[in-house]
């Protein structure tokens, strides 16, 4: 074995020894290896500085007579220098053969072109000397002949970059806009709701609303009741926050009422159940199609509701569900989680959540 480093392309040796000055990495933790893509011979940064700081010099590897410059050195990205070299070659080829599919008449032509480029790359990377020289010549010739095209494609690539950056910015703006509108929607709704609640309270005061009525007729009112029920839960949680989370546990049955639908998933090896083992038929009431109520019927004929896909059965289902979930809990005015939320309310909610957690642990 030669004492001088050979001119092949070794992977960086396992001991991480600089082949030029023989420093071993574990003696010098900060040692960094650099390569120069002229010949891919690696050496430590000390050697690079020592040999090339004063200007171009010959590669210290035996048999390698390349002239290297300090500025050409960089750290190797891949441990395997032949990979490093292949990546560089591919990068170089890709910069010259930069046609896009649009530049070709047919997909077939495009594929043939890609095939040709790949063959050429192969020759450059691992062909015999002759093949490599031929490929190098082809590359240079193509570059000379198509300089204008290449430049145009390069710019197109850059413009595509620019375009997509702009598009990305526009997307972000659109996403922001959507949030703003959802917010407006919520504000409108809150006002609307306050109005209708006032009207309802007025009529309640006048004794106009009776609890009977059709199933859906009662439902609308019960929805209100349910919301009041929710407020009760919130209020309870708030007071629990004052007296300790344990007290809240008693109230969380209602807080997490929707969780009632949750069931354990079946044993994993059973047949695939698209529903994931969950019950999906409401158990406490039966839903009849086409329940009607004058307040709803006027919308049923409205083209705006019909065409947009508004679903009245979903509405009655919700009204009924909420009615059954919040049966006649009637407390002080509801306080909705509306626009904005104070720190106190956040704490209230988290108190509720903690309580739920505690309760689940007890079960």
């Amino acid at each position, binding site marked *: 074995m030669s004492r001088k480093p050979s001119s092949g392309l070794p992977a960086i040796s396992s001991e991480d020894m600089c082949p030029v000055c023989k420093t071993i990495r574990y003696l010098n933790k900060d040692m960094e290896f650099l390569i120069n893509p002229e010949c891919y011979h690696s050496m430590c940064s000390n050697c690079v500085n020592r040999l090339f700081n004063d200007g171009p010099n010959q590669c210290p590897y035996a048999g390698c007579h390349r002239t290297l410059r300090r500025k050409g050195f960089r750290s190797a990205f891949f441990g395997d220098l032949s990979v490093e070299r292949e990546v560089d070659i591919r990068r170089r*080829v890709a910069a010259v053969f930069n046609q896009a599919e649009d530049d070709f008449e047919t997909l077939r032509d495009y594929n043939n072109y890609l095939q040709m480029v790949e063959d050429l790359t192969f020759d450059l990377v691992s062909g015999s000397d002759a093949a490599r020289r031929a490929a190098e010549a082809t590359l240079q010739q193509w570059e000379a002949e198509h300089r204008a095209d290449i430049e145009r494609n390069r710019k197109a690539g850059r413009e595509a970059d620019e375009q997509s950056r702009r598009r990305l910015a526009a997307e972000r703006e659109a996403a922001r806009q959507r949030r703003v509108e959802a*917010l407006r929607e*919520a504000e409108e709704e809150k006002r609307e709701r306050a109005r209708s609640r006032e009207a309802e309270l007025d009529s309640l005061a006048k004794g106009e609303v009776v609890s009977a009525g059709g199933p859906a007729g009662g439902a609308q009112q019960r929805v209100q009741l349910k919301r009041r029920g929710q407020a009760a839960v919130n209020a309870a949680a708030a007071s629990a926050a004052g007296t300790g989370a344990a007290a809240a546990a008693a109230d969380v049955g209602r807080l997490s009422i929707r969780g009632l639908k949750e069931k354990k998933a079946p044993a994993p090896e059973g047949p695939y159940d698209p529903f994931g083992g969950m019950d999906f038929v409401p158990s406490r009431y039966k839903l009849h199609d086409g329940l009607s109520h004058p307040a709803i019927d006027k919308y049923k004929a409205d083209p705006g509701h*019909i065409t*947009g896909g508004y679903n009245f059965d979903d509405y009655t289902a919700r009204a009924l*569900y909420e009615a059954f979930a919040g049966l006649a809990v009637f407390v002080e005015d509801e306080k909705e989680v509306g626009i904005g939320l104070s720190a106190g309310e956040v704490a209230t909610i988290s108190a509720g959540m903690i309580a739920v957690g505690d309760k689940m642990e007890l079960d």
Partner: protein
Amino acid sequence: MAVTMTLDPIEQLNEDEKRKYIKGKKLGEGTYANVYLGHSRQDPSQLVAIKKIKVQQQYQDGMAPDAVRELKYLRELHHPNIISLLSVFSSKDQNLNLVLEYLPLGDLEMLIRDVDRVRYGAGDIKAWMGMLTRAVWFCHDNFVLHRDIKPNNLLIAADGEVKLADFGLARSFADPGRRMTANVITRWYRPPELLFGARHYGGAADIWSVGMVFAELIIRAPFLAGNTEVEQISLICKHIGTPTEDNWPGVTRLREYTVPSEVVPVWGKEAYMGRFGAVGADGVDLLVRTVALDPKKRITAREMLEHRWWRTDPKPTRKEDLPRKSGGGAEEKMGADLKRRNGILEDEANNSNSRGAKVARKLDFGQGK
């Protein structure tokens, strides 16, 4: 003697909650929030994601409404395919922090885009679609519209379970007569009724998005990727069919109804077989039902789960065996985006001469650097 600051009980509770978690490196950034990795102080192996809502000037004295939506709905929806909210606290400056379960395996978009390293088949698509459909069914069954379903809002848990996340645009089903905003759902996933400006809509709007995700899973590129609303509508007309009074009574009277003058008849199932045949005839049947133009005729989430596709071969892959993202990080995602722009991936799925496509991707190596 130690001087103890007296906090009122609620503040104290908040303080306790906050102290339970330690915030770590940033995981990602959204329109309204930064998301950080975090862990429990008591048990550092218990990882969480802390979504810290960015301060918004206009809500100085309260919390941002997006966060409130997210909070309100996540608190109510407990389901294996919906991200769970573990806790919430406010930090200094009244910043709202949502503590969410940590979902370390990225999102469906990453998997769809990483054509080079992530290979998947019909059984995998079926499993992912099953989890998505369950999540949507559960939302709708609890009267919640999500309004932003898309691959990057479908996050993946360590065990492969897909979880619907980002409830920042969610709301409950509106009462009749109550107008909703039509400007929701990211454009590529937005249904025609919203593009036409409908103000009274329902769960069908989410179902369209589910259909778009389904199509995208199959062809591994967004199915209808319009750059503007107008372009989005014309893509729908071209690839699905032109909405007319015949196939969707009343549609021409929607506020923003405009379609290209050349009317394309609604494509039948056969037309989809070429491009989407990978999921079989039953899968295509389901897909076509999710993209019915008239929302009243669109399949519901429950009906989707009752469809025969789930029961035909191949079986949905077990979640533990589903393909995973390779390596980590944003750089990869960017790489995938760059490739996509080259226009190569669009044709890959149906390109019988896939050798060409592969070569092309190999060459992407050095570009964009």
